[in-house]
């Protein structure tokens, strides 16, 4: 498992194309955050939408690279079960989430102490909400990528993000996030986290079944 995890992380962070896209992505996000100044709405967009949307980057990069050389052909000759292969990919995504959490934590601190956008308690809440949303993103998009492969999976992923962003903007006017979150928001976050765990387990099972079907 360790070998495959090492490979997936290399594919995500050390392949030149991915170094550039990830590096520029994060750079632009921090630059935009700086240029737009202390804006509570944009803070939530970055921490609760933009960063969680990239949570599945390890799986996406691994599938993209594997498809290009049909790595699965040799992977399946290794002494690793299909269950372990899927579990390794989930672990890779969780490492991606940890990295994102660290970056969004820095961003949150920048908003709280640099831009004085909100207080630290609220900042931490938004940051944690982003982390929980990341778990949902991994659960949903993993199934999409296993089901559709890299190309179609990426298209569906981008469309989903756009829909997500659209709903976010609509909610801004219909039922502002701030009001929703103000209503027992810590309880809501706890429930959301509790639901994310079985959803991840369900997603793992679904991905495994899809992978087994593809290689049968």
């Amino acid at each position, binding site marked *: 498992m360790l*070998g*495959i995890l*090492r490979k997936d992380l290399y594919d995500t962070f050390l*392949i*030149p194309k991915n170094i550039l896209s990830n590096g520029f992505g994060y750079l632009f996000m921090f630059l935009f955050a700086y240029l737009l100044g202390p804006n509570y709405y944009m803070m939530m967009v970055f921490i609760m939408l933009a960063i969680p949307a990239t949570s599945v980057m390890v799986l996406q990069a691994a599938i993209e690279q594997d498809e290009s*050389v049909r790595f699965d052909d*040799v992977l399946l*000759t290794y002494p690793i079960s299909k269950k372990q292969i899927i579990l390794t990919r989930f672990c890779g995504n969780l490492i991606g989430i940890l990295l994102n959490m660290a970056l969004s934590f820095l961003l949150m601190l920048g908003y709280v102490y640099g831009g004085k956008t909100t207080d630290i308690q609220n900042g931490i809440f938004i940051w944690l909400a982003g982390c929980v949303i990341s778990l949902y993103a991994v659960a949903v998009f993993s199934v999409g990528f296993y089901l559709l492969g890299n190309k179609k999976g990426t298209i569906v992923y981008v469309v989903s993000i756009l829909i997500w962003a659209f709903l976010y903007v609509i909610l801004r006017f219909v039922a502002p996030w701030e009001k929703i979150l103000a209503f027992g928001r810590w309880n809501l976050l706890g429930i959301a986290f509790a639901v994310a765990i079985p959803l991840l387990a369900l997603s793992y099972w679904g991905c495994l079944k899809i992978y087994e079907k593809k290689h049968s």
Partner: protein
Amino acid sequence: MENAVQIKNLTKEYKDFSLKQITMNIPKGCVMGLIGANGAGKSTLIQSILGLLKADYDEIFILGKDLKTKEREIKEDIAVIFDVSHYNLQYTPAFIGKILSGVYKNWDMGLYTQYLKRFDLPKDKKIKKFSKGMKMKLEFAIAFSHAPKLLILDEATSGLDPIFRDEILELIREFTEDEDHTVLLSSHITSDLDKIADYIAFIHEGELQFVKTYDELRDHYGILHCGKDFFESMREEDIVSFKKEPYEYKVLVKNKSEILNVFPELEIERASIEDIMLFYVKGEM
């Protein structure tokens, strides 16, 4: 004789193709050549016995272990080499070594480094800069570095020039010097098998036609050139397959010594593996 691989009634069904009731054994310590035309089912058979494809079978034992229950243990002792490398071209041999040290329990990094040196493969150069031959040598370095007992090559020599192919065959020969080591070599370059195979398994349209020792094929099979009258007088059991040419009949026989004892004046030429394959595929029965 102990078998490295035992297959009983293996069947794999596709919509337009099926592998039918394959039963065969691969004795330990031998090189088994698996021949057949493209699409005959060679790769399907290999993928099925590796558990890469879900096939139906009564039993598959590899290195004495049941594939159904010991797949992971079996794969520790197997190395598989395909016709192309499946590693990302951005990787270096050194990085592949790091990946595989986390995959195989018995991965030997020292041995891997020795093989890289022996094959003149720069360990920190990206494999996108390697030639096809270098990539194939890298596959062998990878394969030999976790002490496999069964080496499976799926068309691994195709696309290589004769000199490289010869080097590869030498490596296989070296590997089989250890009597615990077994090789299953699928190839449609039958001249390679003429040089190295102890056994030949021939598969055609998903059906296993025969498994025979190379010596048996060499000593007993032959191509008889004769006229129509002689052909019509031949016993059916002597004829494996025949081709009707404009001025003669070419007949693949499986008991050339017996025929020559009775008809010493006949011309029976030695049948190569390619000839035998062509007669089975294109000849008339």
